[in-house]
């Protein structure tokens, strides 16, 4: 992959990531979201958040398994899209469900586990979005930055749990997300045990 190819692929990933938003807006404009448009928009942005979280977490394993180091170029973008769709998801609740009655939102957050878990998971994504720039990687130092960004796993687990909590009976989709996340976590754990501590090797000249 040369620089131009990577530039193009980034553009393509970006374009694909805004396709769902474009179609959601299109359908909303043409009254194609069904009898309960707010519910549909809330659910869709929520599911998209989980999709992008899983995709961003899949980048590293995929990169290692397929020996395609350039994939790393898409981790930040897909992660930021997870944050973006998460923010939209939260906005649909704050606006269309609660109409900015902040007192009620706070009370709801502490009374209802599923809102508490969702809220917490989203808040965990905020520092990750803020520190997603190269500047912050330098400022924090690679090791610390990496440790901070493991919070993405916590947020994803929380997000799936939040989804599972709200489903009345048909838990197939939350379980599918849980399975994907479980596989990604298992990969990391196995990898961590397989890779021995890096010790400087003395190479004869």
């Amino acid at each position, binding site marked *: 992959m040369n620089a131009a190819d990577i530039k193009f692929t980034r553009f393509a990933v970006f374009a*694909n990531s805004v396709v*769902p938003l474009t179609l959601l807006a299109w359908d909303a404009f043409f009254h194609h979201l069904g009898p309960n448009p707010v519910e549909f928009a809330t659910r869709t942005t929520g599911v998209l958040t989980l999709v992008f979280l899983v995709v961003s977490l899949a980048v590293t394993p995929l990169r290692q398994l397929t020996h395609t180091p350039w994939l790393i170029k898409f981790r930040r973008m897909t992660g930021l899209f997870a944050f973006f769709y998460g923010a939209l998801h939260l906005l649909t609740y704050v606006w269309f469900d609660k109409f900015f009655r902040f007192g009620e939102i706070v009370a709801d957050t502490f009374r209802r586990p599923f809102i508490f878990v969702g809220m917490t998971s989203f808040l965990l994504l905020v520092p990750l979005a803020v520190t997603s720039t190269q500047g912050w990687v330098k400022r924090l130092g690679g090791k610390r930055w990496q440790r901070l960004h493991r919070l993405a796993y916590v947020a994803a687990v929380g997000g799936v749990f939040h989804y599972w909590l709200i489903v009345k009976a048909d838990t197939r989709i939350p379980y599918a997300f849980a399975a994907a996340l479980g596989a990604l976590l298992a990969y990391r754990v196995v990898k961590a045990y397989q890779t021995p501590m890096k010790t400087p090797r003395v190479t004869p000249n």
Partner: protein
Amino acid sequence: MLIKKPDEIKGREITPPETYFNRRNFLRGAALVASAYATGKLYRQFAVPDAPPQSAARLEGVQPAAAGVPVVGDPRTAFEDITHYNNFYEFATDKSSVARRAQGFVARPWTVKVDGLVQRPREFDLDDLLKLAPAEERVYRFRCVEGWSMIIPWVGFPLARLLAAVEPLGQARYVAFQTLHDPKRMPGQNSSVLDWPYVEGLRLDEATHPLTLLASGLYGQTLLPQNGAPLRLVVPWKYGFKSIKSIVRVQLTSEQPPTTWNLAAPDEYGFYSNVNPNVDHPRWSQRRERRIGEFGMRDTLLFNGYAEQVGPLYAGLDLRANF
């Protein structure tokens, strides 16, 4: 005077055609379009499916509502919305898919067995059952436990008329209802999301309350499959799941009968399940509701606005403990 000549573009700066119509650029464009198209297609798989309008047979001779039935002033929910936003797990767990999945469900012939603690147990053919009393139009509020509501012009007659026909015995205190159990016709029953068949129950005084309706139609037409064809219960002051659909059996009992959602999650769905803005569902508030077709939220009313009519049924009952 010097007239500036336009800058000449040097020949070597002109992009050669073989670069301009570069194979690479073409491939990139194609990849972009194809991937965006595929993403869009994938998204559409999960979006709201197209809802072809459906209609059912017109019902003749429908009477206006009986005297004493409260008049609902709010506009009626659109027929399209009533018929394309359904909780009916026997067909699909996704509300917007039920109409499509239920299409082709044949509700004839249909019999309803009414037995248990009654003087005259009987298996009714649907047509005979519908002749027990004149059908009337009842415009009721309908409030789902999930926090949305509709205004539905049902067609039917009071359940009390059916019960009177079988003459309940003195020991009868409850009425149990059962939905058809036939996974071939109701494919959702192949999955184990709920225990099939769907069962519901009412106290006998609730069942014989004049507002409790045995509905066979809405908007002047017979019920479409997604709305519980050919015969369903409508208990307007209780959450929607109490209004059991596609009934095949009614049984009078002395003990409180089991109910499907209560079995699935006893701490979330009680036997009574009366609409009550002051008693939250454990996972969400019941204070407000979204009326389908409206953008804002409405305040939920105690007993769904039927407190005056049904409040006396629950005099002295702790509504928080008996949710």
